[in-house]
């Protein structure tokens, strides 16, 4: 496959003016990559820790939540909250994609509204889920 590196590239993220429609598109891809790699590894890790028995599961939970003194492990918490939002955002924009596939929702106003709705819904749901987790303790 010979490729001429001198050929011009089409305009990309750094050229276009950002708007909700293109933001939701690139965020769909970014959250998809984050979920595929981070989410996939963490999900398999969780299941393997569970299959490994009580001790291995306890050390996984300790790592993801807090150490024995009850202090929150900050980095895992940030990763888990980020992946929760990525999951919900990817789900919302994914549902939007399925609706767009039917040919609906391409009018300028409705398209913009739909893009912004995915962000609002995913952020609200993330906050609700994590508020209930921290409330449980």
């Amino acid at each position, binding site marked *: *496959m010979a490729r001429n590196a001198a050929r011009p590239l089409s305009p990309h993220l750094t050229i276009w003016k950002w708007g909700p429609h293109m933001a939701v598109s690139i965020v769909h891809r970014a959250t998809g*990559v984050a979920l595929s790699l981070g989410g*996939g590894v963490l999900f398999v890790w969780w*299941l393997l820790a*569970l*299959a490994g028995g009580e001790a291995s599961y*306890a050390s996984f939970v300790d790592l993801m939540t807090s150490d024995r003194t009850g202090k929150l492990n900050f980095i895992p918490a940030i990763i888990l909250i980020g992946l929760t939002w990525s999951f919900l955002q990817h*789900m919302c924009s*994914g*549902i939007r994609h399925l609706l767009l596939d039917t040919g609906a929702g391409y009018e300028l106003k409705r398209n913009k509204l739909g893009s912004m709705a995915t962000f609002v819904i995913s952020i609200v749901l993330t906050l609700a889920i994590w508020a209930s987790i921290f409330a449980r303790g």
Partner: protein
Amino acid sequence: MGTGTGIGRVRGLGSAHQGTHHWWQQRLTAGSNLLLLTWLVVSLLRLPLYNYRALVLWIQSPWASVPLVLAVLSMFYHLRLGLQVVIEDYQHDFSRIIAIVLLNFYAIAGAALAIFAILRVAFAGAVA
């Protein structure tokens, strides 16, 4: 506009010899992900406890382990299709081949490990 016969073009079979297969599989697994992961989130939120025993008891029920295995298959197939498109957009020539081979290894190994773990818990139960 000259790849194949008229009926071949109508069926979406251009020079790639396959048409909408990838696109359609991506949509199908999007739908099954939506169902199975909604199930997973709701059943996790409905669990009374999150300790080891509670999760093992939960997975020991076929009503949890079977949809969990299905979710793993659907998820890893979906991520394999999705990351393939990302790689094809940003990687060219030799690095594209390497990346796609690694992606396939990751998707198949990840799914195999996850399913093994689920079945081990489902069949062996709690271990000390």
